[in-house]
């Protein structure tokens, strides 16, 4: 069963003149225990989508969806408070730049204890403080920090970035979430640290059957860790399917270009040869092209591309393009 089922979600930015459609009819479905990658270049609206799922967008943004279900509950019908109750119980989010997200004036231990839910504690009120401490230490053990005494006493600036990210993950785990949304958890990190974080997330997925939505701007980074991938471009849905399909047989010209432009995936091309790439860069919100937003950069664009294409489904591999590359394999 799908725990998260989003169909045709649109996010509008309300301005004084005309509203801007930042995310245009994106669909996303997540099964239980799945690791899904959400890939797109910066400015493609992937963080907005994540924020819309958690429901932390403010009044400037208007969210519409044909279907927006969380484990069978229609979130669009709930009031803000009810929704917050449902989501905060089951969904947790970790952000990029963990150093910036932690409170620099409080110790790690105090911040972790704050995250521990009251419902998990038992006994009389004088026992609670001790229990909270124990829970915080346990959380740190869970994310692979062995010496919790040192860690709880230190401030965020005294820890390395990878450790801070582990603390963030520990905080997210405090509520025992079903879905963890990781918004570029390893941005600006060294490759060894990146791997530690990804391995931790993978083990949490395996041991606790926690679903993970892994957001990244780089396709080649996430391919090793995900089961399925959704690709977005400039706020539009591009392609979704299993990782193998997306990486080996992409149907959309944009995904094809992403795979071709990664030097890691193309080991067979000669050294110092030109890499395949799309001309230009991602359009800014004020000047979005009509129809398929990839149009001006797409090598396969034709007249029909001024109309946004419908999503086609080939055995679970969804693609949104008039001229998909399906026939070329």
């Amino acid at each position, binding site marked *: 069963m799908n725990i998260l089922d989003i169909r045709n979600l649109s996010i509008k930015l309300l301005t004084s003149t005309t509203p801007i459609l930042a995310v245009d009819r994106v669909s996303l479905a997540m099964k239980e225990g799945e690791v899904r990658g959400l890939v797109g*270049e*910066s400015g493609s609206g992937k963080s907005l989508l994540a924020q819309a799922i958690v429901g932390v967008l403010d009044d400037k943004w208007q969210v519409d969806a044909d279907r927006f279900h969380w484990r069978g509950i229609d979130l669009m019908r709930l009031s803000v408070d009810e929704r917050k109750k449902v989501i905060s119980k089951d969904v947790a989010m970790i952000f990029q730049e963990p150093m910036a997200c932690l409170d620099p004036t409080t110790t790690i231990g105090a911040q972790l204890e704050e995250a521990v839910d009251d419902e998990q504690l038992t006994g009389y009120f004088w026992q609670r403080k001790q229990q909270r401490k124990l829970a915080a230490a346990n959380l740190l053990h869970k994310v692979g920090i062995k010496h919790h005494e040192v860690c709880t006493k230190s401030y965020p600036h005294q820890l390395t970035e990878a450790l801070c990210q582990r603390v963030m993950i520990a905080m997210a785990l405090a509520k025992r979430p079903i879905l963890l949304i990781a918004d570029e958890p390893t941005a*600006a990190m*060294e*490759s*060894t640290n*990146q*791997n530690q974080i990804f391995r931790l997330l993978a083990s949490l997925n395996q041991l606790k059957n926690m679903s993970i939505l892994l957001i990244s*701007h*780089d*396709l*080649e980074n996430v391919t*090793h860790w995900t089961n399925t991938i959704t690709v977005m471009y400039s706020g539009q849905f591009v392609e979704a399917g299993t990782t193998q399909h997306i990486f080996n047989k992409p149907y959309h010209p944009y995904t094809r*270009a*992403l795979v071709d*432009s*990664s*030097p*890691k*995936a193309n*080991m*067979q*091309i000669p*050294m*110092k040869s*030109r*890499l*395949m*790439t*799309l*001309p230009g*860069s*991602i359009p*800014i919100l004020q000047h979005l092209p009509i129809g398929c937003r990839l149009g001006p950069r797409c090598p396969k664009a034709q007249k029909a591309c001024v109309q946004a294409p419908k999503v086609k489904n080939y055995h679970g591999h969804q693609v949104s393009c008039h001229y998909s590359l399906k026939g070329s394999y």
Partner: protein
Amino acid sequence: MTSLLQVSNLSKSYKLNGFWFNRKSIPALEPLSFDIQAYKTLAIVGETASGKSTLAKLLVGAEKPTTGNIKLNGQMLQHGNFKQRCQHIRMIFQDSGTTLNPSLTIQQLLDEPLRLNTDLTELERNKLIQETLQKVGLLGEHMSFYPHMFSGGQKQRISLARAIILKPQVIILDEALAALDPSLRSQMINLLLDLQQQMGLAYILISHNLGIVRHFSDKMMVLCKGRVLEVGDTQQLLKNPQHKYTKKLIMNQHFKLPNN
């Protein structure tokens, strides 16, 4: 063939000021030697605190080396003689957004190195700026724009323009490709490779993305804690790493070369 840049026995250690017997020195970079030829790229790979950035700083002359010397075309580069060094060795930084002065137009930004290092008249300088902007794939009209009007990829092109405007021989890319989106990154790689062919540049690429290193560089050097672990031809080294640390780096990135 003589080498363009020759580095011998270069090292750097930082002194901690303590009381008399308590003075310590921390070695950031242990003595190393290498040389680069024109049209070639040397990649430097390593984790944080491995001394990659210290090496870059020593090469551009931002820090004074403790021992060793740097020779360019057989000529010794003195520390402090920036006139000589700025012309020939240039550097591009990781975050192009913060390295461009937001209160200057692109013309003023690019004019500065020309005014300080050459005797060209204003007309000649303007012409050179336009030519350089076209070379990196921007337009001459972009001269009167401010940095905030450009996207991330274009900003990186401007820093590249600033680096090549003095017709240098060596360019140091300190993680210059790490913060870019994949499609912009490959555009930038193509541009850098074209410029290398046109101008005979030598690059020193500091990166931790082994995919780019494989594609881009001829030789590579693995640094760990200020020590050189391995130097060699990129293909050979990646195919057949000798040191445990290099193997770990390659494993970490799930990096596999085709067996042929």
